[in-house]
């Protein structure tokens, strides 16, 4: 207890620094990954992508990230075992942040398919085992989380598959695809707004002292969907047929209709990413802050202050503008196969799946879900060639990231404890 009183401010400052480091890494790599599809399709410029990311990552974390943050800071570790010395949890969370940040840095330098989420979860578990003991880990919860890592990409893939098939049925395989694209385009935009806002609002805004009945949630989501669809409709109307391009590729004009629509999925994706990856990135920071504020009281219910999320958002924007834009540009040139129609399906499916996972408190990997969604489009015979070796890489990253994140966190935990006691 005395340690917390003595070094409380220092702990918070360290947590902020580590949190910034972590979110910088997320911005430099992860966000570039999720926004790359929209930049690559020509829907938005790199500059617009950074602005969209700044706004919607923050909104996602603030509005829909509460459950994921809670999972990271409370649900993985059983705190009753360390009720007498809560500083253990502070050292542990700091160690977990640093471990995840360092591992992410190493992995991204080498181009390994590592996810921020898995690093954080592995680090928290690693510290819990080393610092408290095997029994301190809520293994049932870990089981659920690991299951969600397998289920979520499959779900994303299934949704993307259905979306792709519907676009084929309603638009591409008709006698006048361009007219049908203009007709159905706003409906798809409506779906983006409706689904994301419904999942977010449905019993999900309690942490903002904003409780909505089921009917109210639906009504608001429909209203929001209509508003978005109206903007989408206005943008889609201005798309003209490009007869020259159509000679080369018959669906060139149809693809052009989907370009403005991708702006909406880009926003949805940034929102989804914020609700999950940013939320779990700042989870340990929130835990440290909560402990210091309550003077080490573990059971007290602490609110997630908005400035913590702002730090997360700030770190991401800095990461994006210092390095992420480069990644984004490269991604854009490498995924030419992801045309606006395909990109729309994959991004929308991924965004919806991530937000759904966030609502249930599951820390999932946005990148892995995006990969699953693209494979879903591929299963609809929609993409020239997908290299399925990536799946092996993802599975490997699960197997490797968890223990390495854990061991690093354990090492940093003992170092921090040594320094302060």
């Amino acid at each position, binding site marked *: 207890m005395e340690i917390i009183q003595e070094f409380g401010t220092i702990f918070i400052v360290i947590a902020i620094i580590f949190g910034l480091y972590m979110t910088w890494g997320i911005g*430099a*790599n992860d966000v*570039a*990954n999720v926004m*790359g599809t929209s930049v690559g399709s020509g829907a938005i410029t790199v500059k617009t992508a950074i602005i969209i990311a700044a706004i919607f990552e923050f909104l996602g974390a603030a509005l829909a990230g509460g459950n994921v943050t809670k999972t990271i800071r409370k649900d993985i570790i059983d705190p009753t075992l360390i009720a007498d010395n809560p500083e253990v949890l502070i050292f542990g969370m700091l160690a977990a942040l640093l471990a995840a940040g360092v591992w992410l840095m190493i992995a*991204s*330098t*080498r*181009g390994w*398919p590592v996810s921020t989420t898995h690093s954080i979860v592995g680090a928290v578990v690693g510290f819990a085992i080393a610092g408290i003991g095997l029994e301190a880990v809520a293994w049932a919860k870990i089981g659920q989380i690991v299951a969600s890592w397998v289920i979520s990409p499959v779900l994303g893939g299934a949704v993307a598959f259905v979306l*792709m*098939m519907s676009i*084929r049925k309603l638009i*591409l*395989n*008709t*006698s006048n695809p361009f007219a049908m694209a203009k007709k159905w385009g706003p409906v798809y935009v409506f779906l983006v707004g409706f689904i994301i806002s419904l999942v977010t609002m449905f019993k999900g805004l309690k942490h903002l002292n904003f409780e909505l009945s089921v009917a109210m949630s639906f009504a608001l989501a429909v209203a929001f969907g209509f508003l978005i669809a109206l903007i989408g409709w206005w943008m889609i109307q201005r798309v003209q047929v490009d007869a020259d391009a159509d000679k080369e*590729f*018959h*669906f060139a004009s149809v693809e052009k209709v989907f370009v403005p629509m991708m702006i909406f999925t880009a926003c949805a994706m940034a929102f989804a990413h914020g609700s999950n990856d940013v939320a779990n990135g700042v989870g340990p920071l929130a835990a440290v802050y909560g402990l210091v504020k309550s003077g080490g009281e573990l059971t007290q219910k602490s609110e997630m202050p908005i400035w913590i999320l702002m730090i997360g958002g700030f770190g991401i924007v800095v990461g994006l503008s210092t*390095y992420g834009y*480069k*990644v984004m540009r*490269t*991604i854009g040139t*490498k*995924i030419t*196969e*992801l*045309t606006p*129609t395909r990109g729309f399906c994959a991004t929308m499916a991924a965004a919806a799946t991530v937000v759904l996972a966030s609502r249930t408190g599951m820390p999932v990997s946005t*990148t*892995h879900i*995006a*990969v699953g969604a*693209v*494979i879903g489009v*591929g299963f*609809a*015979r*929609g*993409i*020239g*060639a*997908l*290299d*399925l*070796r*990536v799946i092996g*890489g*993802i599975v490997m*990253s699960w197997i490797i990231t968890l223990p390495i994140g854990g061991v690093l966190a354990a090492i940093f935990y003992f170092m921090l404890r040594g320094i302060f006691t």
Partner: protein
Amino acid sequence: MATNTTFTNLFGRSPFKPLQEHMLVVKECAREVPKIFQALCDGDTKRVKEVQAKIFELESKADIIKNDLRAHLPKSLFMPVDRRDLLEVLNLQDSVADTAQDIAGLLVERSMEVHDSMKQPLMNMVSRCVDACVHSARIIGRLDELVETGFRGPESEAVLAMVEELNMIESDTDQMGVELSRNLFAHEDSMKPISVVLWYDLIKMIGSLADDAEKIGNRLRLLLAR
């Protein structure tokens, strides 16, 4: 930091662009074949050699694209079409260029006499066979649209209709081949026996340009049926 991410690594190189590129070169190669027969009919040996050089150049250009495509087709690739079907189409395309090369090679290496009454039906048949190649190149050119529409709907029906047309062109060439052989045998006493045998082979080779072009179309029909 590496800019290769999990996400970018997911995207393999699409085989369809190089396949179409290959077919365009093969088509150009086939288009030279009427020119070489025209030069032969005109008795212009210098021109025959020129066209032969052009055909050989195009054939090796096609080979480079073919080998490059094969090299970039690892088994881990997931594609909207079966890998074996794709390789089969590539092989068929390649054999069109090979046949053109064989014809050109023979015409240069052995001075072939052309009976006057054969000239017109010969040129007609050659040009019809090249029609078949041009037509199948047009079909291959629709592959991007087929991938976009998932090999279904009006687009796939349009391609099926093109395949039907290709089959009709090929039956034309069969008929022309029979007539040309008949013409040849009618004059066999006035020609060197070896020439007759070689002309018979040549007629078959010309016909196989259309045969392989037709097989390309039929293979695509199989892709659509799945």
